[in-house]
């Protein structure tokens, strides 16, 4: 069934289709509509879930951790300051190997007080052990939530699905919402090996000395490596069931490109249009859509870039004191290969500032005419 819905509602419909036993959340703009819609579904009896209202995002994640440890599929959604408040619990979730799925609406961090799009909130959670997905459009949000449960429960790691504030969260698009029976067939029941059980009481996450802590970390790193394979496998399975294919990294006209863009989130659609425009002008442009950030698709990148002369990384985020975050990570991934393009970084659109097709064309031109520095603040009012 096709519905015209916002990114927030696409996330809510997707969560509903996965039949979470427990939803726990605290409201925050621009995410609130995700859990508002789910609360409505629960109140109307359309969704049989326990909806736990809590006093903070820290508690929301704590409730999801408890529920997941008890073998319940759990869901939450947050944004920006709320995600930052969860930080401690994010480690607890991942290190406990709990496959919680969370929507994060990418909103800039305050101050100055703001509610608009910026990825620095979720990218700042890089090392918490969560898988991170960045969505281009509302259909992808719905599809990624459903796939995320399957991947997360397979590798026992939590998954964060990010979407840009307002560009996706509050923009309506046609979204194909699959029938419940099809999702039930695709997504098996959550049945973890270890869970809290009153008939077999155990303590979870207890003290481990230096003798074994290191090995527990290695296991999570291995699970992240497994997740790379699993994300591609589940993406293919999803195509078989629902007709839309997904993978770690999605190239667009990249095969013969000598000028490559790399981008993530809603900005990908803008760059796609710019690539088409450049192709019309007989320029060999292409795009790499960075769908996943953790696990980082290093091997896929290495396969895609050697033919290109220039690689331009667009970031709606900034690691203050360094550069755009995807830019740093992409450079690091390519550091040890011989034939690599010149890599440029452009941070643009922080705090929700629009990045248009013309802006992307200007960025490409500044590289072609050798006016760009290695790292640039595009569109800064000088």
């Amino acid at each position: 069934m096709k519905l015209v819905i916002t990114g927030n509602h696409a996330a809510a419909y997707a969560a509903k289709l996965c039949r979470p036993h427990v939803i726990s959340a605290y409201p925050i703009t621009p995410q609130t509509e995700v859990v508002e819609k789910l609360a409505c579904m629960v109140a109307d009896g359309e969704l049989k879930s326990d909806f736990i209202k809590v006093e903070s995002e820290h508690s929301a994640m704590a409730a999801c951790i408890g529920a997941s440890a008890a073998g319940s599929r759990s869901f939450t959604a947050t944004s920006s300051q709320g995600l930052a408040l969860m930080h401690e619990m994010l480690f607890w979730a991942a290190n406990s190997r709990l496959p919680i799925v969370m929507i994060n609406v990418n909103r800039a961090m305050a101050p100055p007080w703001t509610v608009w799009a910026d990825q620095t909130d979720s990218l700042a959670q890089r090392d918490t052990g969560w898988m991170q997905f960045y969505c281009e459009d509302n259909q992808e949000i719905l599809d990624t939530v459903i796939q995320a449960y399957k991947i997360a429960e397979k590798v026992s790691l939590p998954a964060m699905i990010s979407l840009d504030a307002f560009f996706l969260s509050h923009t309506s698009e046609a979204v194909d919402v699959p029938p419940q029976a099809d999702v039930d067939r695709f997504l098996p029941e959550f049945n973890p090996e270890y869970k809290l059980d009153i008939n077999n009481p155990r303590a979870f996450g207890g003290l481990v000395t230096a003798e074994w802590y290191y090995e527990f970390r290695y296991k999570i790193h291995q699970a992240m490596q497994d997740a790379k394979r699993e994300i591609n496998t589940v993406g293919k399975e999803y195509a078989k069931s629902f007709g839309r294919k997904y993978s770690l990294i999605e190239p667009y006209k990249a095969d013969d490109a000598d000028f490559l863009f790399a981008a993530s989130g809603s900005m990908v659609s803008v760059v796609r249009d710019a690539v088409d425009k450049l192709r019309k002008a007989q320029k060999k442009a292409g795009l790499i859509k960075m769908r996943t950030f953790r696990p980082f698709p290093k091997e896929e990148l290495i396969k895609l870039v050697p033919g290109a002369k220039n690689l331009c990384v667009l970031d709606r985020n900034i690691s203050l004191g360094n550069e755009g975050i995807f830019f740093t990570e992409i450079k690091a991934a390519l550091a040890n290969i011989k034939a690599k393009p010149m890599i440029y970084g452009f941070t643009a659109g922080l705090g929700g500032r629009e990045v248009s097709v013309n802006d992307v064309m200007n960025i490409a031109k500044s590289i072609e005419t050798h006016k760009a520095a290695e790292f640039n603040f595009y569109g800064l009012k000088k």
Partner: protein
Amino acid sequence: MKRQKRHIKPSKRFKSHKDLPPMSVSSVPTSVNKTGGWRVLTPVIDYDKCISCMICWKFCPEICITAEDKPKIILEYCKGCGICAFECPKKAIKMIEAKG
């Protein structure tokens, strides 16, 4: 509620990361940790003053007071925090310097 004795499995001998569960999981419940040994002060109930209001039972953070007809402290788990003595409306609980 009575504490049941459970069969305790011996912990596995680990040699490699492959032998480990996904995260640290105990093979026994935490009730095997008899935390009473941490205690410095011991609560003693004067049953002549006790009115069985069970406020001590309600406030005990270690759930080590049982509430049958009279409250009874399970000293195996009591850490001697003194909350029961503080909350008792009849001052029927004294904290004394002795191992109980």
